[in-house]
């Protein structure tokens, strides 16, 4: 479904991605794990089209999208939940969700998507008039995911959904991610919390300073002594 080939991306003089390649099949959950600054967010932003690669390509369903605009990429069904949630704090929950459906025109379709999002996150329905900035951290993460679901993605890019959440909430969020996946949405999951990520992923790639250091089945990586030492706390 998604194929990333030899991607090189830089911020000015900083060479952030040094030839990353990986792929994701339909209906898979693939995790990207790695330390701070490994290039995980940069990878997602390049797939979303808000960063442009120096070389290499991003191929989504046989089509090179590395020069496609972010709006068109959303239109093709790739939607990102950014790191740190980045919900619109001064807009209501409802307006945040409406922004998620920005690329859609049909009012009935938008309504139907909203009903689906409220089914996944009943909490958001209760709080729809509230300003995004006044939600709790967990609710904000739900809103960020709900907002992305409004575009009815086929591939969801999640950047550290567990960031700053209590363990119990992390578990809830990961259950929801699995539920979304079961509905037929493929998932590319970026996580620092390697334990959690590997527990729900089918496959994973370990990034180190802009390169893929290791890759394989999630359960195999879980057993890998290198991964255990570096990312699973021994």
């Amino acid at each position, binding site marked *: 479904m998604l194929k990333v080939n030899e991607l090189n991306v830089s911020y000015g003089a900083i060479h952030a991605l040094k030839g990353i390649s990986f792929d994701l099949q339909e209906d898979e959950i693939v995790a990207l794990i790695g330390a701070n600054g490994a290039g995980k967010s940069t990878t997602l932003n390049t797939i979303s089209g808000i960063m442009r690669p120096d070389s290499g390509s991003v191929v989504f369903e046989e089509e090179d999208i590395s020069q496609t605009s972010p709006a068109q990429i*959303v239109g093709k069904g790739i939607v990102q939940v950014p790191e740190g949630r*980045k919900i619109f704090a001064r807009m209501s929950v409802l307006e945040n969700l*409406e922004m998620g459906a920005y690329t859609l025109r049909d009012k009935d379709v938008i309504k139907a998507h909203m009903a689906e999002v409220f089914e996944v996150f009943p909490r958001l329905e209760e709080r729809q008039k509230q300003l995004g900035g006044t939600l709790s951290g967990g609710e904000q993460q739900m809103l960020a995911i709900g907002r992305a679901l409004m575009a009815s993605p086929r591939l969801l890019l999640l950047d550290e959904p567990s960031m700053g959440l209590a363990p119990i909430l992390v578990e809830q969020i990961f259950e929801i991610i699995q539920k979304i996946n079961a509905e037929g949405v493929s998932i590319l999951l970026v996580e620092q919390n390697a334990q959690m990520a590997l527990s729900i992923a089918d496959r994973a790639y370990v990034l180190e300073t802009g390169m893929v250091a290791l890759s394989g089945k999630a359960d195999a990586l879980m057993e890998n002594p290198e991964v255990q030492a570096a990312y699973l706390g021994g």
Partner: protein
Amino acid sequence: MIKKLRNLKLTPGLILRLVVGLVVLIYLGWRIYQTAFGEGTYGPDTWMRFLIAGLIVGGMYALIAIGYTLVYGTLFMINFAHGEVMMLGTYAGYFALEAFASLPAPTAADPNLNFLNAQPVIALILTFVAGAGVSALMGYLLEKIAYRPLRGAPRLVPLISAIGTSIFLQNAAQLLFGPQRRQYQNPDFLWRGTGWMIPVGGKDVMLTYTGLFSFVLSILLMVGLFILVRRTKLGKSMRAVAENKQAAALMGIDVDSVISKTFIISGILAGSAGVMWGIHNGLFNHYVGFIPGIKAFTAAVLGGIGNIPGAMLGGMLLGLLESLGPALLGLDFQLKDVIAFTILILVLIFRPSGLLGEALSEEKV
């Protein structure tokens, strides 16, 4: 409370604020006392006249101030060329009215009738379309040429570009249109200096037709803008871009195009204010945007820059303070500009976030 006071450190900044605050308060108290109980105080009719004048000019300030606030909200820069955007609108409206006045539209009853007076409503609408259109185009080009290439540069850089563009536009207008003052040619029903007489305290106060027209139109435009920003998809995407450009882009919002539209909307409001300015005040030249530009900037800061209701409130308030202030303080009326800039300085010292700025940061949390 007492504990709070004890914990207060007397920093030089705080001492400065205390001293300035005390001096201002004593001065204001003394002046207002003199006005209220001194000799030769004004009658209610005069106060009414000041009040009306303040509301009229306040409406125009508010329209221009919204432009500063919209642009600041999205790009975090002060568009110092905004006054010149208004100035070009004033010229466009002037040339439109001149054209309509010289377009013959004779009727059997009046063979000398021109289009301006034969179809005054249509002519006025087209005049505003011309003024708002030229300013909108100017706003659009300004962003595209002077600001967009500098996006991501340190914040001082686009500011310098803005000031440079402002000077360039003033000089270009002088070169194109000449330095002489021109006079707006209004349709007969909006003749300057005519209006309704309102009896106040035994005397008549004139509410000019041009003033009432400007005030009503500025209120309508503000209501329209408010609805646009709150309810429409464009307005919501403008707010989303103002809050977080990256998140907005990830939703599929074309950030560059929304920024362009923000400048276009600012231009429409400034151009409309520019035409009102001409219709109400009559005389203008290429400097016409300068003073209203800084005043509206002051108004935007007073209301809380980045905050739209704040810009509206700030504009109205500044218009009123400027008009009532000299009389209240017993000063020469020439000093009304000084009042505006004193307010700017005081706001920057005591409440840089402006009147409604706090509400905004509370919502942000």
